[in-house]
């Protein structure tokens, strides 16, 4: 029913723009296009970023798995490995702390008028991505496939029905949010 919609290239570009608009509006209004709030999260003095992310993950996880169970959506998993996910993740984190925005929120920060995000952040990310593209063939042989586990999900790893992970995960993540509130974070 939606395959026809997915195939319409021009309309999809327009949908991307509209969905991005909503995403950017929400990010700005959540405060996470703001350096002070992001750096506050990394200094563990402001938990706005984690609260938004965990709430989005709980909500998204329940809905997307429901759509999948109804046959209306399919998953789009990113393959991973220890070499890619762990080392890449740590490198990302260091840059994240120096810049104080991530690739999504940096676009929102530019929209809000933050010039460090535009002339530092966006320019830097483009350079960093370009350097990676240039040395990708070398890294691929050297480290990106070390400890490769592909497109593995937790339900697949545990060999259970996805809902057997979705429901407990939603409860644990919600409990974590309650804990943050109880601790006054």
């Amino acid at each position, binding site marked *: 029913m*939606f395959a026809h919609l997915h195939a319409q290239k021009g309309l999809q*570009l327009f949908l*991307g723009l509209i*969905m*991005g608009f909503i995403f950017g*509006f*929400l*990010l*700005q*209004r959540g405060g996470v*296009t703001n*350096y*002070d709030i992001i*750096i506050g999260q*990394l*200094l563990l003095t402001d938990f706005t970023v984690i*609260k*938004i*992310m*965990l709430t*989005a*993950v*709980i*909500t*998204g*996880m329940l809905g*997307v798995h429901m*759509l999948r169970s109804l046959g209306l959506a*399919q998953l789009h*998993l990113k*393959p*991973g*490995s220890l070499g890619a996910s*762990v080392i890449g993740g*740590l*490198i*990302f*984190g260091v840059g*994240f*702390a*120096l*810049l*104080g925005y*991530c*690739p*999504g929120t940096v*676009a929102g*920060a530019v*929209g809000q008028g933050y010039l460090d995000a535009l002339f530092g*952040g966006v320019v*830097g990310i*483009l350079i*960093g*991505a370009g350097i*990676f*593209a*240039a040395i*990708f063939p070398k890294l691929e042989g050297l480290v990106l496939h070390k400890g490769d586990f592909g497109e593995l999900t937790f339900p697949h790893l545990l060999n259970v029905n996805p809902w057997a*992970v979705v429901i407990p995960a939603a409860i644990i993540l919600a409990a974590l*949010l309650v804990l943050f509130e109880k601790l006054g974070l």
Partner: protein
Amino acid sequence: MDWLFMKQWSPYAVGVGIGILSWFTFLLSDKPIGCSTAFARTSGMLERFLRGSKTTQRPYYVKFPPTVDWEWMLVVGILVGSFVSAHLSGQLQLQWIPGKWSAAFGTALFPRWLIALIGGIIMGFGARWAGGCTSGHGISGTLQLALSSWLAAVCFFIGGIAAAMALFTFFAS
């Protein structure tokens, strides 16, 4: 309609909103929310402009062609959406130095620009290394219960917290 002009919404309301948005990206566009690949494509477009068609022969750009796609439009949309939101809530302003930065490191423009640039380079590089960012791995991948994304997201924060603490402990004036 006061909510439309409020300075900040509850993080839980914003989180639920982003979660519901992800239902629609999967349903209507067959895509997860993600941002960093769009930067890699843009970098490819700029390199192609400078170096010509040799660029598109790079194995990375064969995998991720430097073209405008759904995700690229998503990132443009983020910029516009944030602009409109900031305008409505009266927070639109040209600013070089964020408050927490100036409190720790002063109001000079050059250091902030340089560290933001270096941070951007490291983050752009790391996002491609990990295959995603705080959106693609941190929200979309984790909600799909992907092992790669949970590992990457946890490492984003381990690296981020360690580096931010080091920066603000050892270098603050």
